[in-house]
């Protein structure tokens, strides 16, 4: 198990390889579908940020420079005194952010993205170019993982809804596995290829037609 403290420098992140188990501690920002759309529309595509969003931008930049994005829409307990606790907080499926994650990594200097299910070629290429990794948390292990959210510091755009808001959280010993690294390695590509080969074997043993790549 490799202990990683956020902020993470480029050298450390480039030393990580597919298969490494990491225990992560420090400041993280949750962001999923609506947040990614917002980050790209407001701060990547717009010529200059909307005045109303400047304060949010500062908070987001501060957290994401050499920082970590967590694809997560938690169940939270918002107490009357303003205190917030994460109740259940596992990862959500990451592939939905494939269209924009590369831009977000570049724009904000993100060093790690936590999620589940892996991401595609564009993100893999951004991990290599800018020096970052994809960390796979255990999908559905929401009660277990919520206990590694030590504190909720604040929230950006609570109006996006509980699941879609960007929660500013502090992780302590949050366990995940490197499944995409900054050297072009992807466990997801490896398993997909190996399982495609197993599928061909299974089809042959069932007397079925082989996978015909031409027609697919």
């Amino acid at each position: 198990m490799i202990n990683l403290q956020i902020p993470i420098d480029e050298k450390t992140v480039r030393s990580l390889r597919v298969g490494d188990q990491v225990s992560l501690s420090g400041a993280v920002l949750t962001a999923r579908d609506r947040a990614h759309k917002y980050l790209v529309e407001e701060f990547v595509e717009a010529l200059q940020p909307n005045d109303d969003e400047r304060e949010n931008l500062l908070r987001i930049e501060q957290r994401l420079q050499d920082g970590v994005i967590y694809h997560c829409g938690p169940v939270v307990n918002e107490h009357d005194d303003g205190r917030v606790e994460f109740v259940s907080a596992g990862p959500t499926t990451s592939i939905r952010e494939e269209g924009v994650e590369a831009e977000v990594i570049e724009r904000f200097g993100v060093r790690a993205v936590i999620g589940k299910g892996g991401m595609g070629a564009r993100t893999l290429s951004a991990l290599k170019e800018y020096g970052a990794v994809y960390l796979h948390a255990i999908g559905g292990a929401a009660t277990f993982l919520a206990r590694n959210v030590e504190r909720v510091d604040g929230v950006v755009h609570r109006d996006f809804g509980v699941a879609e808001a960007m929660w500013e959280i502090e992780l302590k010993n949050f366990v995940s596995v490197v499944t995409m690294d900054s050297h072009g390695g992807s466990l997801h590509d490896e398993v997909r290829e190996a399982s495609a080969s197993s599928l061909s074997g299974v089809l042959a043993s069932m007397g079925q037609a082989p996978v015909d790549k031409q027609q697919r």
Partner: protein
Amino acid sequence: MSDALTDLYEPLLELIRRTSTDLPRDIDEAMTAAREKEEPGSAGENVFNILLQNIEMSRAGTSPLCQDTGMISFYVHHPCGMSQLAFKRVAERAVAAATAENRLRPNSVDSLSGESVDNNLGAGMPVFHFEEWEMDEIDVHLLLKGGGCENVGAQFALPDVGLGADRDLAGVKRCVLEAVHLAQGRGCAPGILGIGIGGDRMGSYELAKEQLLRSLTDTNQDRVLADFEDEMFERCNELGIGPMGFGGKTTLLGVKAGVRNRIPASYFVSVAYACWAHRHRRLVVSKGKTEII
């Protein structure tokens, strides 16, 4: 009758609480058995270790097993004369209350505006399936199905020339293998498959999802389907996708299939994928007494 249904508020609230936090035992038993098959020290074994701890922690602490408390679907069998509208009203109240106490995440989103609704209600939410029967009991089967696994479901119209899938059981098998391969680990493997053969597009999906309400340990009454389920379970696990798609021996925990008649022109095969956190429980109301199973 409507008074009797008002009395269902507490039992329905308890049904939601239990379903969200307390996984059916047949699933953890299958996972405990599956853990033994993974290589000692492998990523797959480690996934099972964490998942089994998560199941126990959620049960003991009553927090949602998974933060995605999913699409809320009630499958209701009821005697003649029960008001479906009255049932909906009381079930909606229970859903809103369970959301307020964090047993459900506010999960209802306006598809056009993107606005999140804070009580889990709204157009088409929750989902109700009603079926009248000749018995006196009311049987409410609740399914909480998250988006990760719902998104990897698939439907095929046979023949599918690209897949080499013809309109027979061999073709159906080809579709199932394809769906599992395409899903990889994204449906939070190890998953459970519900397969619908026949029907129209909607009926085929409905049938597939209904199979997910069965116990993992039951045996299909139809011999052909029972053999089909066993074979698909074995073959899909040979793909080696493994827990979370990390590679490993267990890709699926179970396969359940049902069949409906079709019209000559159509042959649909639908695959509903349930993640390992397959949250479903029943409330049985009989002679004024309630029991959650």
